[in-house]
């Protein structure tokens, strides 16, 4: 069943062939690297500032990049990891569909998950770059559209197949040789619920790609094509070299971790296994094998292999080994990173579903793969790279309804990705933060309340204690939203069953939870539901999972325990029972003698 065995051999060959490439002097090399990076980042700013939907403008659920003529990634905007890393797949998929036929002035739209897309709502825009009549590269970006049609507005997790999720666009040229294809353009907007808003987002994407194209052309004009190409290759080699160097810090061998997803959104409580075998080779390459994981699901709870599974693994391995907080230099995220990593997933499994399975919801599984990689490797990593389990989840929420006045749907998509990190060596986990493969922003409450018929009643750290450890986990968030009108709500969530893992004696974390609050009381909800109606006045409460603890709680500095008590993160009782630290209520200080006795027991 393994289709991707050959990948590894191919990668080795690719790397070897790169050695013979012509080289640029080190100064030009550095300068062009900066230029690629700057253009890609500026593309993202163009996109998010011009766009319309909150999901793009406030949450920044987008990605931009520059690519070689064969689709390999040269530079990216560093926005949302799953967006950025996947664009090359869109280019390769569209190129296949179009038999490589590109013209100057083309604008291509693409979202086919079986042709490289990350999932259907992440719509890609691709512009080929021509220099002296030669195709020299691509400028591309993706953005999560709030609606692409399909059975339900916003989120279509419980869909039979990919067509049930919405419009599927495969290498469609909305502009050809500079001329807009009006028929395609009309069809595009005629088949989604938010034509005006999404058109605004689409225009922003086109403008961003144009910016990328012009930026790249300017650089080529100034330095010449050969130098630019050589520098691009040089940076790929560099990134690969740096990553391999760091991977070699781990002893070669096989490492394994597993975890369980809640369910597929339809077959309730049928937990789904995520098995992750990480093999480290002595040449600094790494293979992540997902064999043994659950089979493909009959809902949209599946990960497109190229656009999601691979990209998630690349992002995770890079984050562990070339952690931006620890590596002094900026290491570009480009094809070189991908070359050191091989991803294997059996065809027909949740991580490599067969055509035409639904793949709308893939982020939670990807998060767990990333988290499993960390779990498998953590004991063998250099000390400063270690970590306990993270929240590794997302609650993707969609609130929507029809607005007769504008004749459009209003759709509020909120990626509740504010989970928490687990404890880390020498520091606590961060609170209420997007971890691993997610990195979206929350929507300001004042923006949401102004724009949508929703009221936020609570948004703060969860009151339950974070996972104890010498270094404790971060705290997750709790949010309560109240509906001002009857609202269709969907959620793509997970991690309400298998809690984040503790490490080296740290305690396990806490799962997430969803609750409907109504006049009759509280109803616990599954983490995945599609198209559920909430009546006026009803509320949805979201609690994000909390990471695991790191090291024995009895080794935690008593003063840090005291701080947590003072900050209301744990109670005095927690301090005593979980940490063995006795705090005197009279003066709110650590009773050192009593603590010594408790801790020595």
């Amino acid at each position, binding site marked *: 069943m393994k289709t991707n065995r050959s990948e590894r051999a191919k990668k080795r060959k690719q790397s070897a062939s790169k050695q013979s490439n012509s080289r640029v002097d080190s100064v030009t090399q550095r300068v062009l690297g900066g230029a690629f990076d700057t253009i890609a980042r500026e593309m993202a700013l163009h996109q998010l500032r011009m*766009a*319309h939907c909150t999901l793009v403008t406030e949450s920044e659920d987008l990605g931009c990049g520059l690519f070689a003529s064969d689709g390999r990634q040269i530079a990216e905007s560093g926005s949302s990891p799953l967006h950025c890393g996947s664009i090359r797949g869109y280019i390769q998929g569209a190129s296949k569909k179009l038999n490589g036929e590109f013209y100057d002035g083309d604008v291509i739209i693409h979202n086919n998950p079986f042709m490289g897309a990350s999932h259907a709502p992440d719509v890609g825009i691709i512009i080929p770059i021509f220099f002296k009549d030669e195709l020299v590269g691509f400028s591309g970006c993706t953005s999560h559209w709030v609606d692409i049609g399909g059975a339900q507005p916003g989120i279509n997790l419980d869909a039979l197949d990919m067509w049930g999720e919405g419009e599927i666009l495969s290498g469609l040229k909305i502009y050809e040789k500079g001329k807009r294809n009006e028929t395609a353009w009309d069809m595009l907007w005629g088949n989604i619920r938010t034509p005006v808003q999404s058109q605004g987002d689409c225009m922003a994407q086109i403008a961003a790609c144009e910016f990328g194209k012009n930026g790249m052309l300017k650089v080529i004009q100034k330095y010449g094509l050969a130098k630019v190409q050589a520098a691009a290759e040089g940076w790929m080699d560099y990134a690969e070299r740096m990553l391999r160097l760091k991977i070699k810090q781990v002893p070669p061998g096989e490492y394994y971790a597993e975890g369980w997803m809640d369910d597929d959104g339809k077959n309730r409580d049928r937990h789904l296994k995520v098995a992750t075998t990480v093999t480290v080779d002595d040449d600094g390459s790494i293979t992540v094998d997902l064999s043994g994981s659950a089979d493909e699901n009959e809902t949209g709870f599946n990960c497109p292999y190229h656009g999601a599974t691979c990209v998630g693994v690349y992002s995770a391995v890079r984050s562990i080994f070339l*952690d931006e907080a620890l590596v002094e*230099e900026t290491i570009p995220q480009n094809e070189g990173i991908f070359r050191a990593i091989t991803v294997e997933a059996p065809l027909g499994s949740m991580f490599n579903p067969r055509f035409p399975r639904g793949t709308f919801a893939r982020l939670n599984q990807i998060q767990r793969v990333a988290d499993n990689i960390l779990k498998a490797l953590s004991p063998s990593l250099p000390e400063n790279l270690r970590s306990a389990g993270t929240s590794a989840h997302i609650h993707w929420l969609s609130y929507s309804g029809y607005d007769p006045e504008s004749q459009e749907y209003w759709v509020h998509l909120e990626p509740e990705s504010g989970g928490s990190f687990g404890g880390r060596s020498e520091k606590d986990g961060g609170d209420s933060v997007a971890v691993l493969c997610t990195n979206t922003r929350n929507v300001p409450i004042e923006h949401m309340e102004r724009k949508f018929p929703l009221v936020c009643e609570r948004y703060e750290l969860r009151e339950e204690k974070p996972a104890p450890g010498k270094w404790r986990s971060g705290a997750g968030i709790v949010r309560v939203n109240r509906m001002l009108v009857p609202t269709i709500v969907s959620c793509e969530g997970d991690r309400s069953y298998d809690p984040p893992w503790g490490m080296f004696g740290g305690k396990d974390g806490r799962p997430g939870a969803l609750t409907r609050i109504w006049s009759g009381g509280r109803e616990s909800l599954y983490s995945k539901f599609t198209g559920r109606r909430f009546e006026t006045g009803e509320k949805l409460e979201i609690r994000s999972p909390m990471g695991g603890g790191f090291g024995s709680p009895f080794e935690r500095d008593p003063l840090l325990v005291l701080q947590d008590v003072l900050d209301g993160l744990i109670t005095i009782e927690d301090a005593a029972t979980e940490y063995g630290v006795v705090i005197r209520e009279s003066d709110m200080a650590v009773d050192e003698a009593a603590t010594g006795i408790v801790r020595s027991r």
Partner: protein
Amino acid sequence: MIRVGVDVGGTFTDFIMMDDSRGRIFTNKVSSTPRDTSEGTVNGLLELCSLAKVDPSGVDLFFYGTTEATNIVVEHKGAEVGMLTTKGFRDIVHIGRQKRYLTYSIQVDQPWQKYPLVKRRFRLTVPERINARGEVVEPLDEQETVLAVRQLKSQKVDSIAVCFLNSYLNPENEDRAREVIKQEYPEAYVSLSHEVVNQYREYERFSTTCLNSYTAPIVGKHIQNLIQKLRSKKVRAQIMLMQSSGGTATTRWAIQRPVTLLLSGPAAGLIGGIKFAELADFENIITIDVGGTTADFGVAPGRLLRYKHLLDTRIKGYAAMLPMLDMDTIGAGGGSIVYVDEGGAFRVGPMSAGAFPGPACYGLGGQRATVTDAYIVTRRLNPDYMLGGKLKVYPEKSVAAFKEQIAEPLGVELEDSALGAISISNHNMVQALELNVTGRGYDPRDFALVAFGGAGPLHGCQLARQLSIPSVIVPPLPGITSAIGLLLSDIQYSESATEMQTSLSPNLGELEEKFSKLESGIVERLRADAFKESDIMIQRIAECRYIGQSYELRTPFDSGEVTPKTIENLLKNFHKTHYREYAVSFPDRGIEIVHIHVVGTGKVTSFKWKRIASGGSSPSAALKDTRKIYFEIRDKPKLISTPIYERNLLKSGNTIKGPAVIEQADSTTILEPECRAIVDKVGNLVIRVR
């Protein structure tokens, strides 16, 4: 009138005095006194006064540029802050925008969580709520508020930030909370979020408010202390402080709203740079101020100051939603470390050897090669004339550092490695400049580059060449251009409000009313500062976007009564701005106004910079030496015999052909081959770059 500008830096404090009646200028430079900077300030001022033979009581205006507020935030030394916030929303400033500070990272810390402006234990919630229409749906629970304030009082917090949801639409509950605090804990310094920044997006507004509370008590003490010290020496001058907006404020305002002082450091340099470019008759200006560790950039098309988008204004990771000049700072300067990294890439900075241990050539224990060492290796800097000869350096240490750390690992010649380091350092600056110039749709060929700071004139010609900027201006006193900029700054206050309207059906009356309300507050403040009506300038600005967009662009708004014509002009301005920023516009679409701003300026009387003596075109009288120096000719280092000139001996009209080096005590200008400099009437070096 006698005015003094004082720019307090990390290492030195620079002074300039301008005496209008005598038409004279005096300067002074003393070591800063970091423990209490007012000491260095006052002593340096007295020195300057005796140098100028002026009685301290004769100084009229005292312009003060301080990084005090910035340092409090950067070094996490702020006041103990308490917070009152809406029940259910205790952690808004802690959660932030939930986005990870670094994308590819597991070990990352959110800076605002690692060093919270307000500890969680001091963030107390009270029942109250205003809805998105600005209606009070739940009045402030005063009893709970009293209890909360008492609790903060018992914990001895220094200041209290009041941060309620939707307060930008209706200040009622925040105002009421202030009353309660006044009654219960009058000693506490209070900031209300709707007063500090009256705009939507709660995290950014709350964070800005907390920054204000965090800095206020300490900045207040600092200013009071300075005033006291100055008064005790009979200095009665009015004191004005530079703000991040590029305008100055009186001490009264600065104590109330110290958050406006954050990141004001580079602002004065931009203003000084613009002034000298203006004296040389240039219209479109780019400034670059390079010191030991950082390089600051500013762009002023039409000599106008530009502002950052309010969502991009942060300090050390903390959101600070305030008008800030659109300036960029990168870690690049003389002290930037040059190295070859593990992966074999050639790097310069952003780490810096700083003033201590400093570059290898200082011989203070610094082992690592720096950009200054590259200048020594290429013989562009005169080792015997650093700081006018006051700083002893060891060229052999530069050579050794470059040989071992750079040339050998890269397998290149020593000179190549040093020239390469200079190129990379230049390129880092070029990157930052490109983002701000070509990246914003400005054509560098229409601009002049003003290069100053100790190291700016070393890089100016090369930067201009790479960016296709045709002219470089090196002001007469590059090292104290920022202090001069202080003297030239007008007093400026700005106020803003969220005001949602569309161009399709604008409520002209309401716009007029809202603008007028902001204006009258500002005019009142300027009048209190003793400005005459004729010296007060009011500017209206609307932050707009196409209907449906979420990101606004700062757009000029006509002054005077709001009429349909005003809206028509606003539309025109907006399309133009949108086109400049994004290279597209949609002229058939409507726009929405989101926020309105009023900027009030109190004009400080202008001054004339003294002309220097004129001479013929030959600079030979200033020629003091020739030295063999490495230049890059067609990508190859070449040793060229280069004339060295003394800047103080140059006369206006002198023309110097590159290659040449022009030395003065506080800076060295490198005139690249094929460039030509003319000394203008005020002593600027105006360089035509080829």
